[in-house]
């Protein structure tokens, strides 16, 4: 039995993040696994050490601050889960909780979970949004997705991804965190649907006897996105 935790499902679920859990459940069942998913949120009782996969999605800045307050109560558990190799995925702005601190747009300093050394600074004037193509050392395949945030991350010593192309006003050249089986990426929404190679990797981490399954529509959708993002848009103008 594989136990999934969808953390702050009602708070951190901006723009289709729920898709990650839905596809993962299906992919695991297709691997003949039994799956049990718990949805937990603010003030709920849970123990992060009991899960095989922990997911937290994107949210608004205020919602993330609420989530951080709650997650801080589970700091020790999260550390233990991380150390023993639990597969952890934080998407959107949620991985920002795992650093040293967040300075909000109204100049409040919040302590992060402290698993990583980076710091986050936010402002309320400008939103950074855009489609991105990202390269990692781990995967041959490129990552695709969308970034939507108003923060700047400082001290990202070993970023997960190099942003190779951004269509929009994303100022960053790198993004995300990865250590052991913990992944944090700023991409929004159903990252696992949009990046079949990543979904396959996560499934492989979770199941013993993995067998290859081709998800035709996801594969075609990935091809379409890559085609759209690599096409030279200037010539259409």
């Amino acid at each position: 039995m594989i136990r999934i935790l969808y953390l702050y499902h009602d708070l951190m679920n901006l723009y289709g993040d729920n898709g990650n859990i839905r596809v993962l459940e299906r992919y695991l069942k297709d691997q003949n696994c039994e799956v049990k998913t718990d949805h937990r949120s603010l003030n709920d009782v849970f123990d992060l050490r009991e899960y095989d996969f922990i997911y937290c999605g994107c949210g608004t800045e205020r919602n993330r601050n609420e989530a951080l307050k709650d997650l801080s109560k589970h700091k020790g558990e999260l550390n233990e889960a991380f150390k023993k190799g639990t597969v952890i995925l934080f998407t959107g702005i949620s991985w920002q909780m795992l650093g040293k601190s967040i300075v909000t747009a109204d100049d409040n300093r919040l302590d992060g979970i402290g698993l990583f050394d980076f710091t986050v600074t936010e402002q309320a004037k400008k939103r950074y949004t855009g489609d991105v193509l990202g390269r990692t050392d781990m995967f041959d395949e490129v990552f695709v997705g969308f970034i939507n945030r108003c923060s700047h991350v400082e001290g990202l010593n070993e970023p997960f991804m190099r942003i190779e192309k951004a269509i929009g006003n994303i100022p960053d050249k790198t993004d995300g965190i990865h250590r052991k089986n913990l992944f944090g990426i700023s991409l929004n929404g159903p990252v696992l649907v949009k990046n079949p190679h990543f979904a396959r990797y996560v499934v492989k981490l979770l199941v013993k006897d993995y067998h290859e399954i081709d998800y035709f529509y996801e594969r075609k959708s990935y091809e379409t996105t890559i085609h759209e993002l690599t096409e030279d848009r200037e010539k259409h103008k």
Partner: protein
Amino acid sequence: MKRIRVFLAVLLCKCLRFRARLIGRGSSIPGKITLKIFPNILGDIEMPDLVIAVTGSNGKTSTVEMINKVLLDGGLTVACNSEGSNQTEGVATCVLANSSLSGKVKTDVLLLESDEQYAQYTFRYFQPDYFFITNLYRDQLTRNGHPEWIANVISRSLSDKMTLVLNRDDPLVSSLGHGREKVIYFGADHLDSDTTINDSVYNDGYYCPVCKHPMKYDYYHYNHIGSYHCDNCGFKKEKTDYTLTEANFDEGYIVINDRYRISLAFKGIYHCYNTLAAFTAGQIAKVSAESAIKTLNNYNMTSGRVQKLVFGGRVGTLLASKHENSISYDRSIDVARADKEKPDVMIIVDAISRKYFTSETSWLWDIDFEKLNNENVHNVVLAGRYCYDLAARFEYTGIPAEKIHVFESIPAGADWLKQDKDRPFYVITCFADSGKVLSLSEIKGVKL
């Protein structure tokens, strides 16, 4: 100096607009050029006694169209940016083109549709007397960030001089009036079509927009729109000044404030809210209730949100929605699945926006496509460049695979629909893509 400046700016804008009209161009360019030369000119113009602005995620254009008609039929003269852009430049064109050369807006009312983001710039130089906010939803994330971000952006354009006119059923919109004095609220009482559970894919009303504690709902009109209350800080849906006291979709009418009955040409909850907002504006402008009702009765939108389509003699309906806006899709889905003649439903996602490029489709996972897994819905056709993103999403709806037909090409999808002439069909797509399907129709321009 000011008089000369105003004279030149108004003259310039009028000339540019005249020229733009001759060559059939849009209405933002005259304002744009004039603002380049006279950046603060809007502050020099004398506004009429009544300036009304409307913003929000959905329904701005329809609401403004209806308000405009209510005011005109009520005997007022109106300057309105309905023909053009709702950003600062389009507003400037509208204001200057309707001004005298001495710099006074010549109409009784200035009525403006305002983009959510641009209100903060547009209303730096003048403020509306009444500022309507229809709703704030997940919408165009690629430029808007998220609803809370937009609420914050809008709050920067507010001043104590304005009266806010707010949809009280939308918690985030209503929170903009929290602690303010000059607010008029509109909203709906408990309606027969309400539900006590929200079974949408997501619920943006889970947490109080004021204090972020969990909220409870007495009922939902749709999605997170309804009667909410926060036991922690006391924020809640309270009574409204203009109220939909009844909505009867079977017979097709609504009742406002227990007294005013208005027949509906289009039976959607959206249309009810837009009608209510238009009625409210009429009352603000002192148009008689009788006159407003006469205008709004069986009102047919000119915007073409709902249009007739014919493919190979088969008759269907286009329900224009908005890509990147799950709630607008949810409402169109409601219309299609309510059709007992077992229609086919075609969804098209080809260009996500006509204004900018994005390949972002995560919003498809926020739409309640599960609702199409319904005995009323016969076949589903998915078409356009992002048909595979749609198809991947539809694998989770529970709709049997043999009922789902996927086409990269929109004409191929339309051709497929030609085979089964006995049942109706619906096409749900965005304005960005609706032209592609209208061009294939054997009958064009029939608005429903």
